């Protein structure tokens, strides 16, 4: 299955992926309108530590602990993609507590959101990948589960 992978060596820490993600999932076709003057709630997050930067989004685990832990049955796995039904989510944060990648976070209304590989928006391919200026983020197949 194709997943989003990030190569630390090429991540510039520019945070464009976060903005592209927030824009792609805004439902708007104007980035300025979507993002100007307000905090953003991206589904990808740039991890930064001493000289290291890389972006993290949902790994779409083979054995997704978030899905198994969701009290509302809002998280599910369809064709390998971990989806969230935001209507069902009650904002209990159990998924935040269990995800070992820190890939889930609430939106501005406290409802959980996560990377769904831009399958639910009009982007066509993951916006973080498309917009990464250094191809640090790629969308590709990397073989079987460990």
């Amino acid at each position: 299955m194709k997943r989003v992978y990030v190569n630390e060596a090429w991540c510039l820490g520019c945070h464009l992926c976060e903005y592209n993600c927030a824009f792609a999932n805004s439902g708007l076709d104007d980035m300025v309108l979507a993002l100007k003057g307000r905090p953003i709630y991206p589904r990808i997050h740039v991890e930064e530590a001493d000289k290291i930067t890389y972006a993290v989004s949902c790994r779409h685990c083979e054995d997704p602990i978030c899905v198994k832990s969701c009290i509302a049955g809002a998280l599910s796995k369809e064709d390998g993609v971990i989806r969230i039904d935001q209507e069902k989510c009650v904002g209990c944060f159990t998924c935040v507590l269990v995800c070992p990648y820190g890939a889930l976070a609430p939106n501005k209304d406290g409802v959980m959101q996560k990377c769904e590989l831009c399958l639910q928006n009009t982007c066509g391919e993951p916006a973080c990948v498309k917009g990464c200026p250094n191809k640090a983020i790629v969308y590709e197949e990397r073989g079987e589960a460990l």
Partner: protein
Amino acid sequence: MKQYVIVGNGVAAAGCIEGIRGVDPNSPITVISEEEHAVYCRPLISYYLEGKTDLDRMQYRPQDFYEKMKCRVMYGRKALHIRHDVQEVEVDDGTRLPYTELCLATGSAPFVPPFSGLDTVAEKYSFMTLDDALALERGIDPTSRVLIVGAGLIGLKCAEGIVERVASVTVCDLADRVLSSILDAECAALMQQHLEQHGITFYLNDSVDRFEGHTAHMKSGARVSFDVLVLAVGVRANTVLLKEIGGEVDRGIVVDERMKTSVPGIYAAGDCAEGLDIALGQKRVLAILPNGYMQGYTAGINMAGGSVVFDKAIPMNSIGFFGLHAMTAGVYEGEVYEEKTETSLKRLFTKDDLLKGFILIGCDERAGIYTSLIREKIPLSSVNFEILKISATTAAFSPEIRSKKFGGVV
């Protein structure tokens, strides 16, 4: 062909069904469901009262779940006994269900202490099941003064769920603090303060001496007037089915890492089961949802002939009230790293080069990274703990671990 019988229809049962079907797509599964509802998650009942969900959205699985899983569900039925010698379950409608593999996912039941004068209280409720919540909903109105006995997870979620719908909510508990099973005094105080700001009144370190109609006489001498009483003192695992046939039962039904009980062919999962808590290093009932599902799933796979172990159980809780989230995991022993602000608190407990537990209040970002340190028993010497203390980030892991986590498929 196998014949599976699952007693109970909660999340552990759903996990069990999905586990079985992962291995065995066809053998019949029969579920005995005491409740008249398709599987839902009990913690949702407070969110229901709060209006954050509704009966439709509460469904844990899609409508066609049982159909797709080829399950027969006997709604409103209770399993009376296990005929172990003939491998049958005796149901209260007289049916005898033969099984080759049986899973007990019987959950727990509220424990009600023998308060004196309880029988004088007209409007009294438990808060375990959806039916309890629906009954409570019918019993309250905007003028109701509600007394909740028990300041644990259930009592407080109930308080949160109804506080906007009633005149007042008072919570009392014998313990000296809220959420005493998961929070220490300081953390509990922070949470209590937050709850009080949202209109909840507490009587702590105090308990009801006796009820008199609409009045609760507290041991401290205080009197609390109420219209509606909710009893949320505690729960007990439903273990009798196994106990009566001589299976090993402690606080719950004792299971191994494959969720097998001491009786061949019988498995147990969920709140009724007592498995290994790897944080504590002992068996105990971990009545939390993720464990319930994973135990059920593990049981299901093993019942169907697969082989998996579930050896990652740790206590963990994410509980939020009015937007303030408390997350806890593991055990609180060893050295403490602490960070505090007026509205947040972080405590990390480390011992023997491991993260043993944590309490996070109001600082929940990427908490799962801490949880994974406990679950995976990652030596702290292999990570940059100084960075981790400040924020939960995988950047603190070694390049090798990072590469494995993010380059491989997990």
